[in-house]
C-alpha cells in the first residue's frame, strides 16, 4: 500500500467503475420496465465516466481529454435519455405498459 498522503491507487477507482458497470449490466438484464433498463444504462455510462476522470487525473502527462470526454458522455446521456423516454412514452400510449419482456410481437 502506498504511504503517500493520498493513498488511493487508481485501481480502487477502476474497481469501483467496474462494479458500477456490472451493476448496470445486471440491471439491464433483470429490469422488466424499459425505464428501469434506462436507469441501468445510466449506471454504466457513469462507470465509464469514472474511468475517464480517474485516468484523466492520474495520468502523468497532463491531459484534459478525459474530462472532455466525460462532458460529452453526460451530454449524450441526456440526449439518450430524452430519446429513450420519448419512445417509452409512446409505447405506453400504445400498450398501456412499458414492460419490455411482454413485447414479443415479433419473433421466429
Amino acid at each position, binding site marked *: *500500500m502506498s504511504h503517500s498522503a493520498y493513498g488511493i*491507487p487508481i*485501481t480502487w477507482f477502476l474497481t469501483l467503475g467496474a462494479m458500477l458497470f456490472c451493476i448496470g*449490466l445486471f440491471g*439491464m*438484464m*433483470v*429490469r*422488466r420496465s424499459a425505464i428501469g*433498463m434506462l436507469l441501468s444504462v445510466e449506471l454504466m455510462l457513469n462507470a465509464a465516466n469514472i474511468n475517464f476522470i480517474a485516468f484523466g487525473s492520474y495520468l502523468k502527462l497532463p491531459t484534459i481529454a478525459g474530462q472532455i470526454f466525460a462532458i460529452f458522455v453526460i451530454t449524450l446521456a441526456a440526449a439518450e435519455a430524452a430519446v429513450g423516454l420519448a419512445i417509452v412514452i409512446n409505447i405506453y400510449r400504445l400498450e398501456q405498459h412499458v414492460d*419490455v*419482456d411482454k*413485447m*414479443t*410481437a*415479433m*419473433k*421466429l
Partner: protein
Amino acid sequence: MIEHAWLIPLLPVIAFGLVLLFGRKAPGNGAYVAIAAICASLAMSLAVAFQWFLGGASAAHNGLYSVTIQWMPVGSQMIDMGFSIDALSVVMLLVVTIVASLVQIYSIGYMHGDPRYPRYFAYHSLFAAAMLTLVIANNVVLMFMSWELVGLTSYLLIGFWFERPSAMRAAKKAFLVTRVGDVGFLAGIILIYLKTGSLNLFGDAGVFENLTRLDVIGPWGLPLTAIAGLLLFCGAVGKSAQFPLHVWLPDAMEGPTPVSALIHAATMVAAGVYLVARMYPVYLADSSGMALQVVAYVGAFTALFAATIGIAQNDIKRVLAYSTVSQLGYMIMSLGVFGYVAGMFHLFTHAFFKANLFLGSGSVIHGTGTQDIREMGGLKKKMPWTYWTFLISTLSLCGIPFVTAGGWSKEEILAVAWHTNRVVFVVGVLGAFTTAFYMFRLVYKTFYGEPRKHDIHAHESPRVMLVPLVILAFLAIFAGYVGTPWANVFERNLVPVLGHHYEQVLENKLAGMHHGFNLTVFLFATGSALLGIFMATIIWLKPVLRIEKLEPSFGWLAKLVENKYYIDEIYQATIIRGLMAAAWLAFAFDKWVIDYAIVNGVGYLTRLASDLWGWFDRTFVDGLVNIIGWITKTTGSALRYLQTGVAQHYIFLLVSALVVISLAVIAGHIREEAWIPIAGFYR
C-alpha cells in the same frame, strides 16, 4: 471393276434409304428396288470374281487390291480405312450376294401381304450392305462397325413381327448375346491396335505385317497373339452361335423364314467363321497354338452337341437352326485344326444348301401354315418342287459324296482333322452321323408317310418362291466342284491370301498331309452319313425299331412310352436310346442351365443389382445430400430460438457472449504473458 467394289455395299444402302422413305410408292412396294440393287451387287460381285480369278487381276495386284481413305486422326498419325479385295473377300461377296438376291426374290412371295412389306425389304438391303461391307473391309474397326450393323439388322429382321412377344424377345436376345461376344472382339481390336499400332489389316504398316510385336508373353503365360486370337474368337463365338453363346440362334427362328435363310444360314452366322479366317494370321502367329486349340474344341463340341439336340426337335425351323449351329461348329472346328481352306469351303457350300433348306422349310410353312413336323407328313406329293430341292440340300448337308457340294467340303474338313487331330476327327464323324440322322428324320416326317393332320391343305408355293429353291438346289450340287481333292481351285486361291509368311506356317503345320483324295476319310465320312440315313430310315420311314423294346430295361423311359405323346414320336429302336437320352439331356441343359439359369439368371441378377444400385443412389448418395440440407435447415430452425423477442434475453446473451469473448482474450493473453494474479493491485 475391282476399283469400284465399294459400290457393291453402297447400292443396297441406297436401296435401303429409298425403300425406307418411299417404300409404298416405289414399284413393287419397294421390293423391286431392293432386288434391283442386290442383283446389281450380285452382278458386280460376279464381275469382280470373274476379273479376279479368271481375268488375272489377282496376279496383277499380287493377290490383294486395296483402297484406303483417311478416316481418323490420332495425334500426328492417321488411321485409314477402306476396302480390299482378295480371294477370301471375293468368295464371301459371291456367297452373300447370291444368297441375298435369291432370298429377296423368294421373299416377294413369302412376305406377300405383310403390313410392313417395304420395311422388310429395306432392312434386307441394309443387312446385305452391312454384310458386304464386312467382307471387303480392310480395317478391323470397319469390320467391327459392319459386324455390329449386321447384328443390328438381324435384330430388326428377327424382331420384324415385333407384335409377337416371342419375336421381340428373340431379337433382343440375339443382339445381346452376340454383343457379349462383340465385347471380346472389341477388346481384341484394342489389343491389336495398341500392340501393332495399326487397325489396317494389310499393307506395310498393317496388322499382319506387325504381328511379331504381339508375340510376347502376356498374362497367364500366354502369348499376346493367343489372347488376341481368343478375344477375336469371342466375337466369332457370338455371331456364329458357338457353344456357350449359341442359344440365340434357335430362338431367332421367330423371324420370317427367308430371314432365317439369309441370316442364319448363309451370311451373318458365317461372319464369325469369316472373322476367324480373315484374322487367321493372328492364330498362325500364336506360337503356343493355344488359340487354335480352343477354336477347334469349341467348334467340335458345338458340332456334336447341337446335332444331338436337333434330333429332339419338332419345329422344322428349329431342327434347321440346330443343324446350322452344328455346321458352324464344323467350320470353326475345321479352322481350329488348320483346315483354313476346308472351313471356308464348307462355309461356301453350306451357305447354299442351308439357305435352300430354310427356304424350303419356308415353302413348307407357307404351304401348310404350321411349323410342327408332327403335324406334317406326306408333303412329297403335294409339294414336289419343294420336296426335291429340299432333299437335294439335305443330301448335301449329310455330305453324300461326289454328287453334292456338302460332300466335298465335309470330307475336306475331316481329312484335315484326320491329319491333325484325331479327337476332333472322331467328333466330326459322330456329328456327320447325327446330322444325317436328324435330317432324314426331318425329311421323313415332313414329306413321307401320310398327312398326320388332315385339316392342313398343303399346296405348292408360287413360282417366285420356287425359282430360288431350284437355283439353290443346283448350287447345292455343283458348288462343290470348285474344291474337289483333285482340282482344288479353292485352296489354290485362298491360301495365298494369308501372305507368304503365314502360307509357309500353314504349310508347315499341314506338312505330310495327303493332298488329294483320302480313302480312309472318305469311308468314315460317307459311312457315317449313310449309317445315319439308314438309322433314320429304319426308325421313321420303315419302323423296324420300336420304342416298346426299351421298356424292360428303362422303367422311366417306359413311362414316357406309355405316354401317347412319345409313342407317336419315338420309334422303337434300342440303338438310339442312348442318343435320345443324350439329346434330351443336352436340350435340358441348354434350356434349363444355359438358357434359363445363365442367361436368365444373369439377367435376373443384373436386374437385382440395378435395383439395389438404384436404391443405393436414392438412399445414400442422394440421402447424404438431403441430410446435409436437413442439418442446415434444422440448425437454422434451432438457432432462431435464441431470438426470443425479449430484450432482456438479448442483453443477457450479449453479456454472456462478451464474457466468453473476454475470457478468450485473457486466455490468449495468459498464454503469451507471464500472468501474475492480482499483481498490480497494490502497486
